């Protein structure tokens, strides 16, 4: 069933990614909004099917966790994305979601994985918290990207600035920071759970652990720098740098860690 649900979910996410280029009132624009909503529901069904057939936490593998990550990102986006002013976020979030879903499937994230030697509680706390945090940070980065785009339009004095309405710079800046601030506690907890287990088992620190810690430091710095006046464009660049680290942690370094 999970395999079967993958295609409609991908189709709907893909349709949304393209549809967001259209005007909000056009058929394509409305289809984009419904693509996100329905696609997310279908993926929810997909995850439920995985959970039903697995004996334990089904997203302990790298690809499986990527599947869950996509669901969390789109879910977080649903908070804002389906509102008129924030729909442009869809241009950043939905293509990413569609691509990552394909990557998750290519990595076997839709199939039954081998039984993890980790306990379910550990997986839920560690993988769950880290993924929730990464989903929030992804959204924060998308908001920052939208900030930079909107700021560029203002700087270029684009005459079409009111044709595609976006939230104000102040709103985007504030929301990006707030989203990051809400994401850091789960990231801290997820990392802490992982480190406690690492110490307890006497395992060595791998590249992914180091990169995750660097990511945590980067996003903490983002919030601290904002306190000392780094808001607006500079803060948006820091957030995007932090997001690059999230991508590295999610996609580039996971092999040894999940093995």
């Amino acid at each position, binding site marked *: 069933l999970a395999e079967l649900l993958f295609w409609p979910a991908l189709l709907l996410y893909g349709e949304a990614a393209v549809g967001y280029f259209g005007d909000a009132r056009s058929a394509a624009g409305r289809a984009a909004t419904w693509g996100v909503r329905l696609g997310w529901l279908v993926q929810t069904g997909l995850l439920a099917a995985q959970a039903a057939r697995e004996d334990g936490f089904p997203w302990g593998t790298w690809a499986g966790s990527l599947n869950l990550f996509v669901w969390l990102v789109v879910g977080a986006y649903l908070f804002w994305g389906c509102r008129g002013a924030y729909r442009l976020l869809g241009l950043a979030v939905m293509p990413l979601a569609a691509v990552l879903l394909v990557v998750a499937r290519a990595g076997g994230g839709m199939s039954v994985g081998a039984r993890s030697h980790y306990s379910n509680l550990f997986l839920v706390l560690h993988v769950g918290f880290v993924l929730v945090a990464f989903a929030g940070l992804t959204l924060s980065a998308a908001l920052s990207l939208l900030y930079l785009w909107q700021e560029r339009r203002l700087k270029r004095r684009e005459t079409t600035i009111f*044709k595609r309405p976006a939230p104000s710079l102040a709103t985007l800046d504030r929301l990006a920071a707030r989203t990051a601030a809400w994401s850091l506690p789960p990231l801290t907890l997820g990392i802490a759970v992982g480190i406690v287990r690492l110490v307890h088992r006497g395992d060595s620190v791998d590249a992914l652990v180091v990169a995750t810690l660097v990511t945590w430091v980067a996003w903490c710095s983002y919030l601290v720098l904002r306190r000392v006046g780094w808001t607006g464009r*500079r803060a948006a660049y820091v957030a995007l740098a932090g997001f690059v680290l999230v991508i590295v942690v999610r996609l580039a370094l996971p092999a040894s860690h999940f093995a």
Partner: protein
Amino acid sequence: MTHLVLVGTSHHHAPVEVRERVALDRDQAAALAERLGEAVVLSTCNRTELYVAAEDGDAAEARAVAALADVEPALYRLRDQAAALHLFRVAAGLDSLVPGEGEILGQVRVAHEIGTPGFLLDRVFRQALHAGRKVRAQTAIGESPASVSSAAAALAEQVFGDLDGCRILLIGTGKVGEQAARNLRTRGAEIVLTANTKTSREDIVGELARADVVVSSTSSRELVLDAPTVERARKGRQLLFIDLAVPRDLDPAIHELDGCYLYDIDDLEAIVSETLAGRRGEAARAEAIVAAEAEKFREWHASLDVVPAIASLRARAEEIREAELRKADGVLGRLDETQRRAVESLTSQIVNKLLHLPTVRMKQAAVSADGVIYAEAVRHLFGLGEDER
């Protein structure tokens, strides 16, 4: 049949010196509506229009023309569907000086409230308000700013979001600058300083540290603010500068500062020009919505031709049914209450089913302009109204 009559003048037909002769305030409009009978008077700075409903359309039109006799050569006269379509276009902002302006919808609503509408005018005005709202919801015709001052306010919203508590530094007392500041104030912003020729430069620079929006419109031949001064004074805060002066008051280099956005009169006019072009593009979609609503009104209005015939037919059928039930009372009297109710229901259903198709067909015929013929045929076939003759 009740006719809808429109007599009026607008900015398309008369210059302001003509329109002002028939401009009416709220009380005058209400009084005129009352004098005209079943009427609604719409009077704005761009138009004065009298909508009257009457059986005798010619007489109603003559009364309306007499009421606006001062400007008779500039009057237009429309009837029924054409009048309804005009009203729908007015409510949607399609007949306005600036296409899609939103104020007119409120003015139409007020006119309806203070008028003396009967069923026809009530229906057409409600439908006009519905058409206006629909156009605004389904098109972008009224979304973007259509004047330099509203463009300045909309840009401030793009930077700061909600302007409630936003602080404006107004430099100079030019008319355009004051309009822009007024537009900002209506959205919640407050003016912290209005600088004129007597205000010292130090005071202006001092206020930069508190202001969010600077609107400048002096007649100075030199720059009022340069980029280094702004950079020193603003303390890292975001600022929006609106320079409405010619020659310009503000150093163009201010726009290069991080977090500062400077728009001069040409930038704002370019935005407004683009906006108006967009509004004209959206107007085609809006016209289609309005035309569809006008067609609905036409169908409803045409169906009024056959409504009396349908009502008579149904009344006659009900009369026959009740008479036949009374005749059979001797037999039916032996039935218990439940059985009597079943017979009542059965006979009602037979009557309704028999009349359903003729009713639908008559309404359809009315829409295609054959309604009167059908209504006459039904009256003749069923002998409706013969008792009264």
